[in-house]
């Protein structure tokens, strides 16, 4: 997994790419939860994700849950096909706010 964090239109954007599995999902989780702890509206860019397992999915669920508790906005953007099929398997494609791009989210 590789990552970078950017800011755009008042959102912290966590860009995750590569394989997100048990070995690195704690890091992804930390990245997401840290932005939310800092009170930032947070979007997770999954465009470069080639594989995500359920520990990665769990990190996204925790992010969304934390955001809701803190009244912050949270969403997924540019979800890759590989990540989408796993979200669909867990029926989470209907749960997360999902947008094509940051611009799409802001609009």
């Amino acid at each position: 997994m590789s990552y970078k964090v950017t800011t755009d239109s008042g959102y912290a954007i966590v860009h995750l790419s590569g394989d997100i599995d048990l070995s690195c999902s704690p890091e992804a989780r930390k990245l997401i939860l840290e932005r939310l702890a800092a009170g930032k509206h947070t979007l997770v860019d999954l465009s470069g994700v080639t594989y995500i397992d359920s520990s990665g999915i769990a990190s996204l669920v925790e992010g969304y849950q934390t955001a809701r508790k803190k009244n912050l906005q949270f969403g997924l953007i540019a979800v890759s096909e590989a990540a989408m099929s796993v979200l669909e398997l867990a029926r989470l494609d209907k749960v997360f706010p999902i947008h094509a791009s940051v611009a799409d989210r802001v609009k």
Partner: protein
Amino acid sequence: MNAPSPAIEVENLVAGYGNRRILHDVTLRVGSGEIMIIMGGSGSGKSTLLRNLLGLDRPSSGTIRLLGRDTGRLNAAERLELQRNIGVSFQGGALLSSLTVGENVALPLREHARLADETIGVMVRVKLEVVNLGGFEHMMPAQLSGGMVKRAALARALAMDPKLLFFDEPSAGLDPVVSSELDDLILKLRDALGMTVVVVTHELESAFKIADRITVLDHGKVLISGTVDDVRNADSERVQDLLHRRSRPVHLSADDYMRRLAGE
């Protein structure tokens, strides 16, 4: 670069119990991301093959490579690493009766992974949702129906997001609707996660529905290994007997039969 190695390679496997040889020279390959059905009548050797693949029994000779690793040559650490990538759903479920459904599913994660408790909790609930057992986290195995036990066992097998999933008799003892749902689930898991799946079954309908390839075992030998169409159109009389549920004639001479009854 070489092509990616198959998920499973079994070569010239000979195995049995004591002096009794069950598997004779079995050779088998399962490609990565493939759904392979292992079929055969009772006593054909399919359970013995599964036990050997899982490392529960040691073969007399031959080699087994799982995910590119020769299982006969692993040290303890390598074996553990391999096991993390393998999920098994046993026929009877093999859930621990003193733990809740959720604790059963969490067990491999607590054992093998270093994750926050909250993450494990979400993962367990996601797995239970995937197998349609959402909301049953706090129930005890004894409170579940047969189909629910199978699904809970599958959720536990999936806990670590294995690359390789073994599923022993998914349909045994289930009503047709539940068993068809399990078939759909196996297909979805392969498609979404790219998992390699080996299903041991004698349910034809289920085998034809989900298989990429089918291996038919008979008397401990591979009768045929091929696509669904290959197996359907096979010339072999034994394959057709299995497909059409024909009883097989007993070939035993009067002398042999007498000796057997007399216990000679």
